[in-house]
């Protein structure tokens, strides 16, 4: 799987990794049972400290997205994290209102927000674009 990190992004590196893995699972690009790169492989591939990769994996494991099998590697979990559906829906409704309020304050209309959502949907399904990273 392709990951890209940007050290000068506001989000810490470990959160950038977490977000991309969660998005890949949500978008079906990573399926249950898929093996993730090891700490070492990913740290060398992205040229970042191995402890940063470990922190991202530890948090994802605590959230139930991935699991580490001793001696075999790290895998996407068989069952998605348990969800309280009604609670999740409430949470999403609240987030949707926040998003819309933010958009209207910025002078966007509903159509433009829907377009932003569709773009985001495509990005989640497709993954990050492979751009040459600025050094």
């Amino acid at each position: 799987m392709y990951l890209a990190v940007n050290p000068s992004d506001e989000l810490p590196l470990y959160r950038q990794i977490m977000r991309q893995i969660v998005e890949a699972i949500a978008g079906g690009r990573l399926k249950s049972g898929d093996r993730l790169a090891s700490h070492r492989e990913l740290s060398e591939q992205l040229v970042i400290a191995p402890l940063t990769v470990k922190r991202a994996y530890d948090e994802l494991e605590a959230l139930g997205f991935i699991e580490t099998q001793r001696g075999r590697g790290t895998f996407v979990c068989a069952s998605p994290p348990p969800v309280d559906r009604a609670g999740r829906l409430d949470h999403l409704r609240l987030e949707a209102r926040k998003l819309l309020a933010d958009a209207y304050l910025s002078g966007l209309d509903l159509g433009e927000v829907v377009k932003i959502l569709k773009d985001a949907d495509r990005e989640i399904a497709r993954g990050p674009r492979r751009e040459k990273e600025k050094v």
Partner: protein
Amino acid sequence: MTPVLEFLNVSRSYKKGVPVLTGVSFSLNESEIAGLLGRNAAGKTTLIHTAMGLLSPDGGAVRVFGLSPTEDPVEVKRRIGFVSEDQVLPPGSSVAELIAFHRYLFSAWDQALERQLLDRFSLPRGSRIGKLSKGQARQAALLCAVCHRPELLLLDEPAGGLDAVARREFLETSIQLSNREGTAILFSSHHMTDVERIGGRVILLDQGKVRLDRDLDRIREDICLAVVPRASAPDAAVIERTAGCLRVRPVFDDWHAVMEGTPETARRQLTDSLGIDGIRCVRVPLEDLFIELVGGER
């Protein structure tokens, strides 16, 4: 577990009454990678030279693998690697001779790693060191610093003057060493993106003191910058009294305050303590934070 590197209240000066390091304390464990930041003349090179035993502290103590680098210089140097921006390599010897010399000095020399790095850097073995480009000379220095598989790698502005590709290669080699051998790395750098990329931890030196020593992720999440209108506080001390305030400096028509906490909590703290509205708090990248913490008044 004994820390790989330990500074205990270390002081050092070159001239009487002009301290370069004052009361510096920190420790570095196996596999840890820490970026050493600070302005020019903040004491970074003195700190690294003290760790290597090239300088002895005037006060306090330095321990490397639990040993004193001045009392056990050979044992300590056998287990550390060092590269600096202004390192002098013998200009008249060839790359092959330089490497052969280091191979002879270090019993733990790893010939497979030597071949691997020679290939990766495509260093011309027959060339004289004096004829190499700046980047190639630094690569030769790195090769000599890592092929005995040191437990501690000290890098003093190793990427200074290198182009982006050479810098990235340098970081890659360092990361691989840390991954494979558990090498701890302390590196000073003015390249913030390099520090943000591989430094799990940041140690900020300012006027010979450790100003900040924290995990980079924690810095990103737990420290922010508050911009307070200049008129709302008579002087910096009033703002500095606010809980969680690390530093205040005037910048044009505002005060800039570095605050512990998320932007939301910092804003609440300042609003309560100063009794005014209109305070903006934002997260800032490491470079801006660095400038806010050690930069002068504007």
